[in-house]
């Protein structure tokens, strides 16, 4: 599970810091088991994620997952970000996910599936992202 890819993201996470300004939509999740929390903020430009960042504390899996998330969804259409979240979820459940659906660093999370107690750690940023997108949808009306 502790591949170099995960450790790199953990040591120097990308996308740290929430975007600022009035157009930011935020999602927040907490893990009662370890007390960790994770906030993900997005700014949309039309149907595209113009800016994304996160704030929070957590284990290496949570931090790496958040870091990769910001790389993966920045400047992507919302619908693709949602699809990516679904693909990560499938990966974490141990399902086979095709390279076209989920590529790059994120595949490093596949090893987490073998540690069911840790799946929640990897999932947390993605749930926060979905919350943020949900909130954005709500305000757009």
């Amino acid at each position: 599970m502790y591949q170099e890819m995960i450790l790199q993201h953990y040591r120097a996470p990308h996308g740290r810091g929430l975007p600022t300004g009035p157009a930011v939509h935020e999602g927040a999740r907490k893990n009662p088991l370890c007390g960790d929390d994770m906030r993900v903020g997005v700014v949309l430009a039309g149907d595209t994620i113009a800016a994304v960042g996160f704030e929070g504390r957590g284990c290496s899996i949570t931090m790496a997952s958040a870091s990769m998330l910001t790389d993966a969804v920045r400047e992507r259409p919302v619908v693709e970000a949602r699809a990516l979240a679904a693909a990560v979820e499938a990966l974490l459940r141990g399902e086979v996910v095709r390279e076209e659906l989920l590529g790059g660093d994120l595949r490093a999370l596949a090893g987490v599936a073998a540690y069911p107690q840790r799946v929640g750690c990897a999932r947390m940023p993605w749930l926060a992202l979905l919350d943020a997108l949900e909130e954005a949808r709500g305000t757009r009306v």
Partner: protein
Amino acid sequence: MTDMTHTALAPRGDFPLLAANPLLHYLDSAATSQKPQTVLDAITHFYGTANANPHRGAYALAAAATDAYHEARETIAQFLGARDSDTLVFTRGTTEAMNLVANAWGRTHVQAGDEIVITALEHHANFVPWQQLAKSAGAQLRIAELTDDQQVDLDHLASLLSARTKVVAITHVSNAVGSITPVAEVVRLVRAHTSALLVLDGAQGAPHLPVDFDALGVDFYAFSGHKLLGPMGIGGVIGTRARWEECQPWQFGGDMIEWVHDMDSTWNVLPHRFEAGTPNAADAVGLAAAVRYLRALDMTAVRAHEVALLEYAQERLAGMDGLIVYGPPADARSGVLSFTLEDVHPHDLATILDQHNVCIRAGHHCAQPLMRRLGTSATARASFYVYSDTRDVDALVHALVEAQRIFAPVDA
């Protein structure tokens, strides 16, 4: 370095799970203990020779079940120093025991304006029932704070005690950091300043220290069987007769009644009054076997064994970079090593240790109020018991070094 052989106090071979997994280092006994074969045999033997519904049958098999259940109560009460075994009420464990006391005594005695005193060390099981009782009764919850090494600050505790104090509920031993409460001093303080109900959470006391209820001077003492080599699903609370008599029944049903009229009922005597429904006799019998096993080991030796392991661990870990160990020195601490390691999240620690066959606990240990005060969301915790030995500690240290290596900053 402390002079210690590898030998555990109890042979691993007595514990089927440990015997089947010779490479496993089980260091999570504060969460639940492993079970010796004699406990499993006692349960199987009960079901194979005496299985019937206790109290209810007029045939020999039912009498055997009743006798077995009764003897289990006597054995366990005696082990915990209660001469009057009818003052031991069986519950599922400490959690149910605390809820029982908070309801059976608390609901009829705690009123608006009263105060309930607990400490910042408490497990949620001895925290939330009192918090919610205070909330629903309009009483005030007061929390005694801790010294820098996570012992109950007796001065602060004393400052909270007054005629308004109706309940003082305090842990005998902290599961999260191992602190041992100086019970005699607490009793003296509480009795001097209040006429409060004094409840001890013995979930970590009964398994790790000699306990003499009749000498302790507290009103109620709660414990969980599964933490003292016994099966899951059984535990209990011992109380003084005087305090039990102040209690109202909490759960209603078979065995706890005397007469059921259409519109009201009268109640059976202690201990039955507080044990509604078919009792978990089989697991009580299993727990009796567990305390017999511990009695043979001798609880003073159990305590000494844990202190020795704790000291050995502290020596082996001395000087480890970025390691913070919580809790008081070994003489005031149970066999619990609660710590954080810089740059490594406790959950990552637990996983890496698991990859080295070392089972520890990472999280808030059901003590979120304590974690807030430690300024961390979680710690890693290794905890020892009678089957633990220095090899377990060596494996722990080895895996910690490995974790530190994996997570070391690259530029360091």
